[in-house]
């Protein structure tokens, strides 16, 4: 029993580090590195990860053993594509299992275990909280070309959101937070509550990665791609890189990691809400027959 306990403690620690330190990029990397060196590595203990169906859910088998979450629950997902992508994550590991890169698996673990006992309301509140400090709403007044760069890239997305959701939001040029009227928050809350619990966990992870709710809404609605979304969230950094040069081991690593996180979160939202709609229709059909 000692081994599972150890994994539980370890994963909770990793999750809490991620939650508490993500706003600070340096802190995050520092802690992640510290984590990795302090804790024992997990060697690859299986040859092949495969998927099986059971009671309408998909489970992951590592050789002949069933995968479990850090909380001890049975690991199962509602969608075949998601299960296959997770099996691919496990199959792509070589010698040592790098769990910090397995975002789809960690998102499912969070959704299944819910380690911080978050309710739907708490989740939506924490997502909407990002709207008040949305990356795209904080504009600079100088230098002139950066101001232009920002409005060229960000304005189309803000205008899209205003038009699509009938919301009002005005960017700020000072340190004061942007003006977000109550009806905007209500509209977005209603929209978010239409998603399943699983999708909300994905939403939170995505919003937290790019520090912007509007970018994620545009991405989930397929208005922009992941590449564009990451570009929009790193505008100022890209401007500085153009001016001062790119450092591969900082800027490129940062960009690739962000894209991996974001793509995982979007796929997670998509696949876990796709199944819900199919299920509802199926259950309606059964009721009609009865």
């Amino acid at each position, binding site marked *: 029993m000692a081994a599972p306990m150890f994994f539980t403690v370890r994963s909770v620690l990793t999750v809490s580090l991620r939650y508490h330190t993500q706003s600070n990029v340096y802190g995050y990397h520092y802690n992640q*590195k510290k984590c990795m060196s302090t804790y024992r590595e997990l060697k690859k203990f299986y040859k092949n990860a*495969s*998927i099986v169906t059971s009671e309408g859910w998909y489970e992951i088998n590592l050789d002949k053993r069933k995968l479990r979450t850090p909380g001890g629950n049975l690991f199962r997902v509602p969608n*075949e*594509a998601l299960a*296959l*992508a997770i*099996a*691919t994550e496990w*199959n*792509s590991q070589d010698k040592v299992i*790098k769990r910090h*890169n397995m975002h789809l698996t960690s998102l499912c673990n969070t959704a299944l275990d819910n380690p911080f006992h978050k309710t739907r309301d708490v989740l939506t509140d924490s997502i909407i909280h990002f709207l008040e400090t949305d990356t795209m709403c904080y504009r600079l007044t100088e230098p002139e070309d950066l101001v232009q760069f920002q409005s060229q890239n960000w304005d189309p997305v803000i205008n899209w959101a205003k038009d699509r959701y009938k919301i009002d939001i005005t960017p700020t040029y000072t340190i004061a937070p942007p003006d977000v009227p109550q009806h905007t928050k209500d509209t977005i809350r209603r929209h978010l509550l239409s998603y399943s619990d699983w999708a909300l966990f994905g939403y939170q992870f995505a919003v937290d990665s790019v520090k912007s709710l509007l970018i994620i809404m545009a991405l989930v609605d*397929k208005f922009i*791609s*992941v*590449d564009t979304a990451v570009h929009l969230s790193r505008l100022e950094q890209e401007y500085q890189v153009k001016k001062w040069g790119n450092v*591969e*081991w900082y800027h*490129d*690593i940062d960009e*690739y*990691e962000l*894209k*991996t996180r974001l*793509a*995982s979160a*979007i*796929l997670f939202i*998509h696949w876990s809400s796709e199944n819900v709609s*199919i299920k509802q229709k199926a259950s309606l059909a059964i009721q009609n027959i009865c």
Partner: protein
Amino acid sequence: MAAPSRSISLYRNLLKELKHVYKDKTESPAQIFVKDQFRNFQVTTEKVCRGRNEVYHTGETYLCLLQNLRKYEELHAQYHSQERSVESSANLVGLKLPKTYNPDSNPSNK
């Protein structure tokens, strides 16, 4: 559906990335799934109440995940796999270390 040439290149790239993970000759369930999906939506992607670009967007997002994860791991292995020595860190930013003091080569010691 997006332009045929775009979906063909998406299809090829997805299988190429999966090939990095599954090196065996036999096809894995994941590869079969991707092939089936593309065959399924060959005529139109608007099956089962799906939006126009939905399937394409999902495929593109998955490709983005696989590609960036691979690139990230390559860079990570190159720069972060072990702690650098002072000398190699200095070289990284184009600096050299000064010569270290060696008591044997100092003439006053003899």
